[in-house]
């Protein structure tokens, strides 16, 4: 029925900031013996030139259509170049499109759905994003492009892992998963990756939409790190170097014992403390321990900053910091030496930035009512389509024996019935990746679509 033989040429879109290793990867793809003839459209100039007659340079050119709808924003340069390339169809069997480091992947992806020729002759296989594991931190909070490239990806390659510590790598991976829980994440150095991890991935293939596994997010906290210290009474110093921010929130709370229940209780105290009014503490000033004492540590410029505090009551204490102490080379010093925490814990950052990119995965047993679902999705895409980068789902619709699978890019939506449920439990799985997603509202909206 719909399983016609795919004659369209697969296209992989390669994104990533300048310096993330795109050219290294491209060179690898072009020289490695993988049995494929790959044509490459290069958007980024500079770095290392690639010598191959199937490599074509392009200059990003974005076309917005007259109806002002974001989903009609396409890449004119790709339509022209790919259109021309397809006349040499016999020369290659795969296409890689490299975007510039500052490219928005949205219009690139949409080009393959909006333009008729592209749709007939090509199919978008996947968006592969290279991340410079060391330098991504300089962009990930502030750059829309970096966030979009992570959010749109089907495959994320954490590259240059030899330049970062294992802890930082874990942290980076956790951060990336919170933004895009759909993507497969691999680690690499010198962009060494098996070709089947990045080619023919099927990221936009409805058949493979079934593979999705919406992960529920852990609760978010206003701090990223905590450490448990046994402290005697006396004076201590909390020393911080320079870091990504000029100030950092911190709270030092007593802990009854090192058991889990006690830790959870102190954790709740910490959440409350971090929502209290902050008190600025400058160099050589005294940090206040205790519940409700939300210290805003103001750092010196160009040198270390020392904050003092005094412990009256000996015992366990839990130090909560807004950022990971490693980002500031921060340490707790006793009278004689640096104190190591007994136990540390990292938390998913609760970023309050307006432009935050996250994934929302929802699993819901039961059957949906088609009209309600259509109404909800149309309204959702109409109102938030600009902020929804990718979505995928497998749905159980009342009256249908088959699973309904769909995927979308912004407001472009592609869905159809797939194989029958048979004896399997009918349930609905959906995943959204986007900006300013309201998990509660999405869950609620989705639940409202259940057939009563």
């Amino acid at each position: 029925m719909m399983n016609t033989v795919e004659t369209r040429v697969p296209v992989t879109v390669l994104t990533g900031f300048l310096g993330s290793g795109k050219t290294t990867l491209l060179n690898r793809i072009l020289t490695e013996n993988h049995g494929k003839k790959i044509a490459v459209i290069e958007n980024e100039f500079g770095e290392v030139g690639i010598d191959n007659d199937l490599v074509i340079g392009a200059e990003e050119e974005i076309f917005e259509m007259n109806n002002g709808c974001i989903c009609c924003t396409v890449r004119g340069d790709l339509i022209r170049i790919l259109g021309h390339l397809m006349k040499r169809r016999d020369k290659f069997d795969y296409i890689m499109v490299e975007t510039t480091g500052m490219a928005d992947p949205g219009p690139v992806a949409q080009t393959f759905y909006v333009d008729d020729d592209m749709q007939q002759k090509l199919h978008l296989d996947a968006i592969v994003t290279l991340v410079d594991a060391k330098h991504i931190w300089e962009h990930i909070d502030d750059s829309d492009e970096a966030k979009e490239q992570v959010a749109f990806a089907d495959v994320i390659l954490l590259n240059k892992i030899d330049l970062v510590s294992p802890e930082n790598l874990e942290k980076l991976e956790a951060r990336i998963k919170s933004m895009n829980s759909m993507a497969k994440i691999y680690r690499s150095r010198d962009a060494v990756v098996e070709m089947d991890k990045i080619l023919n991935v099927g990221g936009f293939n409805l058949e493979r939409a079934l593979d999705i596994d919406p992960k529920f997010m852990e609760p978010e906290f206003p701090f990223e790190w905590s450490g448990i210290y046994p402290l005697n009474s006396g004076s201590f110093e909390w020393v911080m170097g320079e870091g990504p921010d000029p100030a950092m929130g911190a709270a030092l709370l007593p802990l009854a014992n090192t058991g889990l229940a006690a830790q959870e209780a102190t954790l709740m105290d910490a959440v409350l403390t971090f929502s209290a009014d902050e008190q600025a503490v400058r160099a050589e000033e005294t940090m206040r321990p205790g519940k409700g004492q939300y210290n805003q540590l103001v750092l010196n410029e160009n040198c270390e900053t020392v904050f003092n505090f005094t412990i009256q009551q000996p015992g366990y204490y839990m130090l909560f910091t807004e950022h990971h102490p490693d980002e500031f080379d921060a340490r707790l010093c006793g009278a004689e030496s640096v104190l190591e925490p007994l136990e540390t814990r990292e938390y998913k950052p609760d970023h309050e930035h307006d432009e935050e990119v996250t994934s929302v995965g929802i699993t819901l047993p039961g059957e949906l009512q088609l009209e309600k679902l259509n109404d909800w999705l149309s309204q959702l895409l109409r109102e938030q389509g600009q902020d929804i980068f990718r979505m995928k789902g497998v749905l159980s619709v009342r009256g249908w024996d088959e699973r309904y699978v769909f995927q979308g890019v912004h407001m472009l939506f592609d869905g159809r019935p797939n194989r029958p449920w048979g004896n399997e439990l009918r349930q609905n799985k959906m995943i959204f990746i986007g900006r300013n997603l309201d998990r509660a509202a999405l869950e609620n909206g989705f639940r409202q679509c259940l057939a009563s």
Partner: protein
Amino acid sequence: MMQRKRKPKRAQPSLKAIWRTNIDDHPIGLAWSPDGNTLAVAGLSGPITLFNGADGALQQRLPGHAVDTMAISWHKDSRLLASVGQDGKVRVWDAETGTQRSEMAGGASWVERVAFSPVDGWLVSAAGRKLRLWNSSGALVREYPDANSTITDIKWRHDGKQFAISAYNGVVLYDPNEAEPLRRFEWQGSTLTLEWSPDGKYIATGDQDSTVHFWITATGKDLQMWGYETKVLELAWSFNNRYLATGGGTQIVIWDCSGKRFGKHSADDVRRPSAPHQASQVSATWHVAGVGRQ
């Protein structure tokens, strides 16, 4: 199927091949010399072959462009042929001797469009956003300020007094004797191809957003035709200015541009697709005057 009162006579094939040949390559450009004696065929891989129009005999094989020829255009005297390609060059060939007369830089790595004036020796080339005017001996007459985006088409008015270019954001008219554009027909959309009506009153464009746009050149008034299945890349006027044939899908749509009402339609007269992304469900049959060869 429409019900017919009478069964139509079975159509007899009326076109017979005079000659056939092949160039062992994907043809990318096909152009008759103005005197009708020679047919030039550009192959994608570069070479340009000239055939005798009467019998298909091979006249010349020009090397063309080392990396992909993109377009060709004849000079009015049928002796010179201009070509552009992905080697960044504009080349002018002597069709009689098969030698290259001039080689010019188009301004970017892909030179995609070239057009000789049908009346004078002017030659216009477009490479990306670079628009250049040359004389027939290959001297640069003028380089225009960069267009807003890649130039998608260049067409001379039939009297050679003006030429028009299309790009994202519409059409710009030029007089080859002036550095400044005569007029801009702005449109927020990507214009892919343009065609002057033979009398120069209209410019029709085919657009990325599955529409055909008309401009009345004297007034700048425009109208838009919606409902095509696909983007529109094929446009052809009849010699009497009356009909415009358009592609844009599996149907050929022919617009009758003769009526008094033409140019007075409001956009509401035009059948719109019910939603922008369901254009394929809508057939573009509104206002069809006829199909086929006029």
